[in-house]
């Protein structure tokens, strides 16, 4: 059904387009998401490196702060060496001493992630504490009046705090540089990736544009093809010679082709019954039935009177969905069968004439048969009388008659006998054409043997070599077929009678699925093939009666019998080299 097919196609198209939509969305997400991710990556690495720079600066600041407080401490310690009673120096020392602890703590917190720095800081703390011990010992000694002298200097040289501080700063600087280099490298890689992503984006976009362009072109092409197809269909409907119309359920014309308008002069919107040609109550009812029951109307025959004359048409109608409407229409197609009707009428008339002729022929055949029957019978009676009374005359004359008188009587008797056998044969021949055939299984082999024995029984002194091939069983009229074999075998014997070694051969030709063919061949005198057509005619003889006896009716009877069985007869020969007589019997009726 077309609806289902259309539905399937629609479904397929929907599936296809949704797949394409999803693929497009994924691509977009990929393009935008990839770029976003890369940018995020690059940005976060930049932020990281800035943070690291700040961190390094912080560490440096703390280290400098620490160094300054240590210097302050050192300075205050020296000052108090020279002026042990200076309260100011003691105060400055105390302040500086109090500061370094928290700074160290901060530094430790800042470099928690770096064990090497932690180690250095530990060392630094030990050095500072060592220094502080020496400072404070020196200050204590001075206060107790002992010479300070070397203790302070020892503190500076034994605990080289500045080297450790430099190492810490150097380490931080190194780390900062490393991180800046890494950040720069990452930024470069990021740039490259962004560049590559842009290229990929461009390619994808180009692909999408190419794809949609292609799609559009295909759609346009398909639309053009569809438009052409629609146009072609419209042209076909418009051009076709059969009137075609679509009518609504109210039997008003919705659409029709040119042929319909030409035939009936109806236009769109006209009621179907407006044309007198369609004003057939029965047909209109049937069309309403089509609309009601949705059953088709097939080949409704109608005779319409139009301007162009009386037309015979057949009307077919079926419901048709209208694409532009919820209602269904009825498609009405009309075939003009006027020519066919005329031909039919002509055939009927010819048949009638033919039947009349056949009747005439049958009648004349019957007359002919009756005539030949009657003639044969009526001829026989006087013949019998001639023969009978000639016989009586001969015996009446007795010994007293002279030679000549007896000869005359003999001629009368012989002629009447000859005429009698002619009439007998003619009667047989006539009967062959008239009698109904009685078909039955006939064993050709047995029949040929039977006929051969019957024909040779009176001629024991003749030497004939018989060559008889195996023969089948056929369906035929037994009596008629016996007559065929009798005639053919009798002829073969008769015309080979002059041969010292007469040979009669009976056999079959190649059997086809359609027919059997049989033949009887002799090595007798044969005949001139120029006359082979005459051979099967009634009373046709190719030899003088003084040479070979016969009435010339035998082969005519053979042909009549075989043709009544639907077969053929033919013969071939060369004078002096024998003759072959063939006949065929159709096999269709021979199959058991």
């Amino acid at each position, binding site marked *: 059904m077309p609806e289902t097919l259309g539905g399937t196609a629609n479904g397929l198209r929907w599936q296809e387009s949704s797949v394409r939509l999803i693929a497009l969305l994924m691509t977009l997400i990929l393009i935008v998401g990839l770029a976003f991710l890369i940018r995020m990556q690059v940005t976060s690495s930049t932020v990281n490196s800035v943070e690291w720079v700040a961190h390094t600066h912080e560490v440096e600041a703390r280290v400098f702060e620490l160094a300054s407080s240590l210097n302050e401490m050192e300075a205050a310690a020296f000052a108090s060496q020279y002026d042990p009673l200076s309260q100011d120096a003691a105060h400055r020392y105390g302040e500086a001493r109090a500061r370094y602890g928290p700074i160290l703590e901060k530094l430790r917190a800042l470099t928690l992630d770096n064990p090497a720095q932690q180690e250095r800081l530990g060392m630094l703390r030990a050095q500072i504490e060592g220094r502080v011990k020496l400072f404070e010992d020196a200050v204590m000694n001075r206060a107790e009046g002992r010479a300070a002298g070397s203790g302070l200097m020892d503190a500076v040289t034994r605990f080289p705090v500045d080297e450790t501080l430099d190492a810490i700063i150097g380490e931080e600087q190194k780390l900062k540089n490393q991180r800046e280099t890494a950040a720069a490298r990452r930024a470069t890689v990021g740039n490259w990736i962004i560049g590559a992503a842009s290229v990929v984006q461009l390619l994808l976009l180009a692909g999408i544009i190419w794809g949609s362009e292609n799609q559009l072109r295909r759609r346009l092409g398909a639309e053009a093809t569809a438009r052409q197809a629609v146009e072609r269909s419209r042209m076909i409907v418009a051009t076709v010679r059969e009137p075609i119309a679509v009518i609504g359920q109210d039997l008003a014309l919705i659409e029709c082709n040119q042929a319909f308008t030409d035939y009936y002069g109806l236009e769109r919107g006209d009621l179907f019954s407006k044309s007198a040609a369609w004003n057939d109550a029965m047909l209109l009812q049937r069309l309403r039935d089509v609309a009601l029951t949705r059953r088709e109307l097939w080949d409704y025959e109608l005779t319409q009177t139009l301007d162009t004359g009386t037309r015979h048409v057949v009307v077919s109608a079926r419901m048709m969905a209208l694409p532009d409407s919820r209602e269904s229409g009825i498609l009405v197609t009309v075939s003009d069968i006027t020519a066919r009707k005329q031909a039919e009428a002509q055939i009927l008339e010819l048949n009638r004439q033919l039947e009349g002729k056949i009747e005439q022929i049958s009648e004349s055949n019957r007359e002919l048969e009756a005539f030949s029957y009657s003639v044969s019978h009526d001829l*026989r*009676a*006087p*013949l*019998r009388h001639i*023969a*009978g009374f*000639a*016989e009586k005359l001969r015996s009446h004359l007795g010994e007293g008659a002279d030679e000549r008188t007896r000869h005359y009587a003999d001629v009368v008797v012989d002629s009447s006998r000859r005429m009698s056998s002619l009439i007998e044969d003619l009667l047989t021949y006539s*009967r062959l054409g008239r009698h109904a055939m009685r078909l039955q299984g006939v064993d050709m082999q047995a029949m040929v043997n039977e006929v051969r024995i019957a024909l040779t029984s009176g001629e024991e002194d003749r030497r004939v070599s018989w060559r008889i091939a195996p023969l089948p069983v056929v369906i035929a009229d037994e009596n008629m077929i016996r007559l065929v074999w009798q005639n053919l075998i009798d002829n073969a014997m008769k015309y080979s009678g002059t041969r010292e070694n007469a040979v009669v051969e009976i056999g079959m030709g190649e059997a086809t699925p359609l027919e059997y063919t049989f033949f009887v061949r002799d090595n007798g005198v044969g005949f001139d093939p120029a006359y082979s057509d005459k051979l099967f005619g009634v009373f046709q003889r190719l030899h003088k009666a003084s040479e070979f006896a016969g009435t010339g009716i035998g082969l005519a009877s053979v042909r009549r019998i075989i043709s009544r069985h639907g077969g053929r007869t033919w013969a071939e020969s060369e004078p002096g080299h024998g003759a072959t007589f063939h006949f065929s019997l159709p096999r269709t009726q021979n199959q058991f």
Partner: protein
Amino acid sequence: MMKEIRTILLVEDSAADAEMTMDALREARLANPIVHVEDGVEALDYLFQRGSWAGRQTAVPAVVLLDIKMPRLDGIEVLREIRGSERLRRVPVVILSSSREESDLAQSWDLGVNAYVVKPVNAQQFFDAVQTLGQFWAVMNEMRPG
């Protein structure tokens, strides 16, 4: 009781045939009288003792030799009348005709003919056949009494 001598009825329109037949029967030296009528109507008149044969006293014939093709009423119709009659239906009827036609043979046998002989053209055979018939039906055959 002496056997009653019945007639032989010959129904034959051809004078020559009739003459040949009667000659043959005479030569057979049969005691039976031979009655010759020339067509079917006359045959029925004889058999049913009507017309010119009204008042005939003799019994039914020993045999009816019946030709088929005759003017007025043919042999087949005569046979039909004989077989349809209560008194005559057992009379031997021999068709003696020139016809070997199947329809003639079939009709005759269907109507209950006793024999069907085709007249031989050969004169001698004809004489022999008629004599044999006469001897068989008039001398050898025993009729139903009555």
